[in-house]
């Protein structure tokens, strides 16, 4: 299991207060409608939590449906952004 995917699943399950269990968050399940259905408030909190936990800021172009189509896709972006920020 990719550590970033794992960490993101934990963020959603433990830090978001949306009553979704770790096991319910499949790596390929969409985060918004059609999948986990995170509401607007939870979603915004997730963005902030990710930025704080991984030490980078999302670029405006990152905030689109493709990136958040699944935890796996999101993890790919998070990995590349975090690496660039640490460099």
């Amino acid at each position, binding site marked *: 299991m990719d550590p970033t995917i794992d960490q993101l699943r934990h963020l959603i399950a433990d830090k978001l207060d949306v009553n979704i269990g770790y096991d319910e968050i499949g790596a390929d399940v969409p985060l*918004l409608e059609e999948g986990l259905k995170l*509401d*607007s*408030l939870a*979603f*915004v909190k997730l*963005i*902030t939590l990710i930025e704080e936990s991984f030490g980078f*800021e*999302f*670029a*405006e172009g990152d*905030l*689109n*449906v493709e990136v*958040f189509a699944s935890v796996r896709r999101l993890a790919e972006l998070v990995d590349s952004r975090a690496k660039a920020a640490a460099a």
Partner: protein
Amino acid sequence: MVFSEIFGRTCDGDDARSRIITDGQFSCSYADAPTALKQIEIFLTEQGIDRDVCVAVECINSLAGAFLILALFQRGNSFVLTPSSQDAELKPTPHFCRHRLRVLPAESADSGKFSPVTHLRSERNMLFNGRSTPPSKLYLRTSGSIGISKLVVHSHEKLLGNAANCISRYGFSAASRAVIPVPIAHMYGLGAEFLPAVMSGASIDLQEKTNLLKYLSREKHFRPTIVFATPAICEMLLVGYKTPRSNYHVFVTSGQRIGENLFRNFDSMVSGRLVNQYGSTELGAAAGCLPGDALELRATTIGAPMPGVQLRLDPLPAEDWLDGETGIGKGELCCDHPCGFEGYVDEDGEWIGKAPHTGWYRTGDVGMTQSDGSIVIVGRAAAGVNRRGYLVSLSDIERRMEKLPALSEVVVVAAAVENKQGQRIAAFCVLRQGSDLDGTQVRRQCFDLLPHYAVPDEVHVVTAGLPLLPSGKVDRRSLAALVDG
């Protein structure tokens, strides 16, 4: 001005093809709008919904929903408007509505030509009480404190007057591009943005249950110049906006509950175009700042009253003063609005309390005047009392009791002291001429009107009239002093 005249004008003109209303899935130009409205009118007639029938509409921010509202305005049908009941608490259709109309969300697979009627459903209301209602009214829900919701009554004509105020204050025009991320089934979305936009012929982007990704994506394509949002939306965009936006002529947020820090931070992300608007379901838009106003004013005050609107601060009773206060410069914000509501009705269509409402409306907000005359909201008036764990508003109890045929006037006050059960409350009543009841009998009638926790502990019939202050208002303090704590 009549709605059909105003709307007819916006649908004419060479540019009517290029000005559109969209919901992200379907779009319709103003040039094609009359056709869509005609289709809805035919549908309504086929369903047996004539102009004099009152309907209950459950609406979402979709093109079909928008056109349904406009069709009802055009016909002069009275209607109750609520957001879709899908995830909200299910409330039964008001009994004075003969039909229930629902606007369904489009399937994501839907494409092709927009046909509004395919997204509408009509049913007869099995609990219709046969009541005939006056034409051209709009009914909006507001929650009462005693657990029984009430419906705010507006006339279509005054709603358009309210909208005209917003047009002049915020500069809506045919060149405007308005994004609406708040429900058009509530007074704010409907009265402050949707109607003004339609009356101006502005392009409109309707968003149902927006989220950050949806908003950002639509913003890129639609390039809005006006938006009416909420503090929650401002917070959301503060996280998503990585660069300041310069496309907004005005970015309106409702309510004074937006924290000053959030206001200042977000204002810089919309190039200084953030303004506060003050209003309510009863009043519509009452006051608001302009983008040109100084940041200090925009961040803390409610702004200038809308055209024709008067505001004043009524003195609070001394028991509401904090330590060290003199009560000067602070009071309950009251509003006299030429285009405000007519009154409240219940689920049966009966007036609650005195109707029609005239004159000054008590907002329940406490305000303070600044040295330049501008008003800052500092809190809510202490009209709520704890009754066995329920928060009850004394004026709600008064309004209910005013319905009793035997009473001509009633004042409800609370004892200053709170015990384990909450606060003791007492009602002081003036009987109508020819009525002959005592306090116990009136109190017994209250059990049919109010939840048990809201029934006053004591009811007194006052024969010599209620004590008055020099201002002519009832001296509630002296009445409260009579209540055993």
